[in-house]
């Protein structure tokens, strides 16, 4: 995997030329605005009022405001639950289970399940939001209809659970496909040797498969945690309510930046999010690499 001797396969000049165009694009349209946003977090920039014309650098004032805002702390908590419940427990576990149980299957059953799971990911976000609003509707929703015409107000009584379920629905495809690929890297003979020794399916997973695909698990968790952390879809379903029950950080930022037009403050929260994601990423790296 990878290069053993870099210059033999790809000389540095060629490598630089290959990376350059992507680098230019990223520098202009990614790094620059991102840094600018980080800088904005240190100002009191807003779209209205005096600050729009003369934004001042206020240093850590935004952060102080942020950390004393109970809504922010609520938002942090909601976001953590959202990420943990839907990404780690939901998507990754369900994705793995699907990849494992389907790995030996070919044919219509496997294709059907895979297509359904992937369709859930492909359908555009705004449509998905509406599908679930319809599905979970108290009076006319299909779910309540299937439950014998119950009138359970899913989105009102269990909003966080609802958006977690929606996110699992949406995101499992990625984990399923990624783990499906990872499972093909486990040599079948190792699993067969274990089967001959009498190992059950669960024992094979625990003792052989999981240690073998540790790197893939890390990659997967990193990406889906990051994406779920930054997911704006909850807004489309519950708009952060009821009563801030589903006020994840992206929704919180949206409210402050878009509604209240406090862009400086919103940028500061984005920076906080970035730092949290960085910490989470490092934590994963520590946990999953340490055991070597």
């Amino acid at each position, binding site marked *: 995997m990878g290069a053993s001797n870099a210059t033999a396969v790809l000389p540095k000049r060629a490598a630089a030329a290959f990376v350059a165009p992507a680098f230019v694009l990223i520098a202009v349209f990614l790094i620059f605005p991102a840094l600018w946003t980080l800088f904005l977090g240190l100002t009191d920039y807003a779209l209205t009022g005096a600050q729009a014309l003369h934004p001042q650098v206020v240093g850590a004032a935004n952060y102080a405001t942020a950390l004393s805002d109970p809504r922010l702390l609520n938002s942090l908590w909601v976001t953590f639950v959202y990420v943990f419940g839907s990404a780690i427990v939901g998507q990754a576990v369900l994705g793995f289970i699907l990849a494992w149980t389907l790995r030996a299957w070919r044919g219509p059953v496997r294709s059907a399940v895979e297509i359904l799971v992937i369709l859930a990911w492909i359908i555009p976000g705004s449509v998905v939001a509406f599908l679930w609003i319809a599905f979970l509707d108290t009076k006319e929703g299909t779910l309540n209809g299937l439950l014998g015409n119950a009138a359970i107000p899913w989105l009102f009584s269990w909003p966080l659970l609802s958006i977690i379920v929606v996110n699992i629905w949406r995101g499992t495809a990625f984990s399923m496909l990624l783990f499906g690929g990872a499972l093909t890297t486990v040599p079948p*003979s190792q699993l*067969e040797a274990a089967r*001959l*020794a009498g190992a059950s399916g669960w024992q094979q997973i625990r003792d052989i498969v999981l240690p*073998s695909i540790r790197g893939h698990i890390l990659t997967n968790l990193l990406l889906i945690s990051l994406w779920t952390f930054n997911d704006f879809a909850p807004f489309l379903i519950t708009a952060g309510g009821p009563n801030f029950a589903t006020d994840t950080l992206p929704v919180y930022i949206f409210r402050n930046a878009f509604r209240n037009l406090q862009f400086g403050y919103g940028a500061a929260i984005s920076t906080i999010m970035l730092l949290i994601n960085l910490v989470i990423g490092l934590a994963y790296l520590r946990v999953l690499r340490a055991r070597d």
Partner: protein
Amino acid sequence: MADVEIRGLTKVFPGGVRALDALDLHINDGEFFALLGPSGCGKTTLLRTIAGLEGATSGQILIGGRDVTGLPPGARDVGMVFQDYALYPHMTVADNITYPLKIRKVAKDERRRTAESVGGSLQIQALFDRRPGQLSGGQQQRVALARVIAYRPRVFLFDEPLSNLDARLRLEARTFLKQLQTELGITTIYVTHDQSEALAMADRMAVMEKGQIRQLDTPTACFRQSANLFVAGFIGSTPMNLLPARIVDGELDVAGCRLPIPEDVRAHVSRDEHLILGVRPEYMSLSRTEVPGALNGTVRILENLGVDTLVTVDVGDLRVQATAPDESVPTPGDHVWLTADPRHVLLYREDDGERVGAPRAAAGTSPGTPDVVNTPAR
């Protein structure tokens, strides 16, 4: 410790490939039994079906008298050494060896003791704390062996375990394995495509082609009395001479030369019949002076085999090979006479490739269970 019996075993893969065709086989308790054949002959499929890693389409498998056909692999009490050893890269050697015991919920001390005794007998104790990635091929192979020995199954299955070793190591490992099996006395089924390996190690062997057994016999019998053209051509480090022959005036006519018909088949051949004469280069003797009842031709190529030299002679349109000891090697261009040792001349019918004359009963079968040689359905 157990014998293995296969009854009418058939395996058809999706897509119609008939990997095993109604096989019947009996392997005695404690026997070293080889499955030999070219790629695609079904030997590995047979091994994996016995292990339970493949399901049989029809037929039965009995181990120690117990029908295991429907049992999952873990319940059949068999151990298998894979071609790539299948060692777990993230476990130490010691943990690899004791993993099957751990699954069977053997207590930790006992696991350790077993590992030490097995590791000691295979001389790998020093490696216990290493990971498989740090071991050489030969060491990995011993660890794989230790793993199956440690949990004492009733049957050992080997899937070409030596093919990943280099040539010299392979020969050493061969001796080692044979000795080990003799000491342990566990029924062993050994798959290989290397005929010299099978001949060297097996008590009995089955030569397979396209899902069927073409000969089931001791190695000596397979070598000396190959039952058909396929076996004759497959076995033997130097290829057997297979020469078209015709019965003319009570003699064999090969490319114009007249040879005597071996006594034991005289009654089974008829005049003018077309046959294939098979005789191994090792059983041909070379003479520079004319000899009656011999093939004659011109020497073309010499190949040094170490002790002997393989001499290729053009006899008419045919190429005939003989081995000659160091002292009497001819020169290319010499005119020579080749005499086939009549005790080792085999005749095969041209149409079905089967040997002329009654097939010898295979040695070493358990009493009361006749061996059935599968002949292809015609």
